């Protein structure tokens, strides 16, 4: 078995190819964050699961430690239903961000949620320190020098939590750097020896902004590291002659996003989970999108909720 020595580990750590066999298949799921499902007209994840268990296979819980977990997320976890933990407040490339108090909060949320893994946009979640009024989300600077600090942060968080940490390509309207986004994340995954979360809508934004075709760069992407996909609707925006895509999490997929998602579903041989991000839309409005995505899922990604098994085996 290939092996590597992790940062701070006194023992040899299996490489990601071995570790991913322990990751459960979660199938198709939905995302939320603090208070999202409590807003008027928003999606109630539990209602989705009751109505369509095959669409609400798991809940991806967006967590900002300063806010904690809301009641619907806690209730979902209390029911023993599967979750993943999506961080919303860690600059992975800043070692100082792994503050003791923050980590204690993360561990407490993990104890409640029992997530299959951690994941989240590998970008800038706050400027300055982690404080009120300083939260945002920007993509990483896409240069070779950014890779090692990001990879170190992923390893450190993995070591601190004992869970896999899947970096996600963030959204943005300004991407700075000379590396293609996909090459950057391929390098990060290699350096951190980790899996990846590919957000198809975010990638579509990047490709459009950079003047690339939707599928540019995907031939060389390390598909065997892709564990999770995100699919969401976006909105084309224009201001003063500048055009970009807003990460709206609506129910209408842009054709670019769907083209990327279809290719990813075909090529990501180790895929465990697909999230449809649509948390601020009512249940009837989101069902057609879930049906569309579900129809494109490979058969091995259609588990019966509650029967998910490590390594992709189905009960």
């Amino acid at each position, binding site marked *: 078995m290939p092996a590597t020595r992790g940062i701070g580990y006194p023992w040899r750590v299996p490489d990601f190819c071995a570790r991913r066999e322990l990751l459960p298949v979660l199938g198709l799921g939905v995302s939320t964050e603090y208070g999202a499902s409590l807003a008027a007209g928003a999606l109630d994840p539990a209602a989705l699961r009751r109505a369509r268990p095959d669409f609400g296979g798991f809940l991806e819980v967006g967590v900002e430690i300063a806010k904690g977990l809301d009641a619907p997320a806690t209730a979902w976890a209390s029911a023993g239903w599967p979750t993943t933990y999506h961080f919303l407040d860690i600059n992975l490339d800043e070692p100082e961000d792994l503050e003791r108090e923050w980590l204690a909060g993360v561990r407490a949320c993990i104890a409640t949620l029992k997530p299959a893994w951690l994941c989240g946009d590998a970008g800038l979640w706050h400027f300055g320190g982690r404080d009120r009024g*300083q939260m945002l989300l920007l993509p990483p600077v896409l240069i070779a020098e950014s890779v090692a600090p990001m990879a170190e942060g992923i390893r450190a968080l993995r070591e601190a939590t004992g869970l896999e940490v899947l970096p996600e390509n963030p959204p943005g309207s*300004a991407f700075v750097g000379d590396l293609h986004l996909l090459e950057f994340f391929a390098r990060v995954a290699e350096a951190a020896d980790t899996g990846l979360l590919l957000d198809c809508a975010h990638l579509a934004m990047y490709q459009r902004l950079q003047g690339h075709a939707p599928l540019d760069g995907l031939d060389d992407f390390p598909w065997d590291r892709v564990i999770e996909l995100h699919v969401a609707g976006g909105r084309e925006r224009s201001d003063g002659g500048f055009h970009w895509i807003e990460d709206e999490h609506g129910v209408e997929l842009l054709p670019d996003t769907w083209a990327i998602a279809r290719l990813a579903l075909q090529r990501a041989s180790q895929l465990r989970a697909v999230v449809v991000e649509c948390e601020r839309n009512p249940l009837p409005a989101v069902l057609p999108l879930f049906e569309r995505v579900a129809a494109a899922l490979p058969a091995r990604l259609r588990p019966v909720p509650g029967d998910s098994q490590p390594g992709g085996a189905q009960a």
Partner: protein
Amino acid sequence: MNPRAIQQAIVRMMIDPAFVAAVHGRRPVPGLAEDERALLRAVDRRAFTTDRFRRARAVQALVEEYPVSAAAIGLTAVDSFLSAPEFAACITGRGSMALAFGTWLKDQASGIGVIEAAMARLRRSPIPEASPGALICGPRFAPLIVPDGTLAWYEATRAWLGDHALQRIAEDGQRPGLPRRGLTRRQGEEFILLEARADGGMDLGTASEALVRLLRFAAQPRSRRALEAEAVTRGAEPHEAAEVLDDLLAGGLLLAI
């Protein structure tokens, strides 16, 4: 290239149009090497300002923490902080925007700024580092000295602002009449004790000059003997000093660290 320096510059470009102009200008930009700057210049500058309300949200966050100071100095002045070196230092130094704003305020909002900056510090009060045998002012308390009339102006302005401070200031502008320090240092001072409650709220009230000065002396870790001597200097009888300190410890106004 230093990715963190570039990332911090991106944040400034998204908030401060003047900094965008500087990046695209002819003069060197402190903290940015030319190759780093070239990467930023390679991106359409309009890409950094797609979120038109980012700066306004930052102003809103500041007004939420400093509502009465904002009423005293006006929104244009609050907004100008986001182009100030103190804000840039907050970004590059992992700082707190609210604390940096308090530093930037200096005397612009007189004693009101002193009070609200102290509130901002108490909301973020770190646990004091251990120093065996030492006593320090309790982390839930801030002893303040402000110009006479500050507390009354603060309370009146809070009432004037109501529940929508930003809207009130935007509609009505600055509120005049801010008390300022007199010509002599001791002219008309007010001694205030600020306490952060467990529920996140703040209690503000006048206190004796002796207590405020004793607690300010305890802003740094002090030996019990030094604090007893300070209590005597501030008017306590020598035989009472130990009891005074015990009472302050029992009330959380002093903390053994």
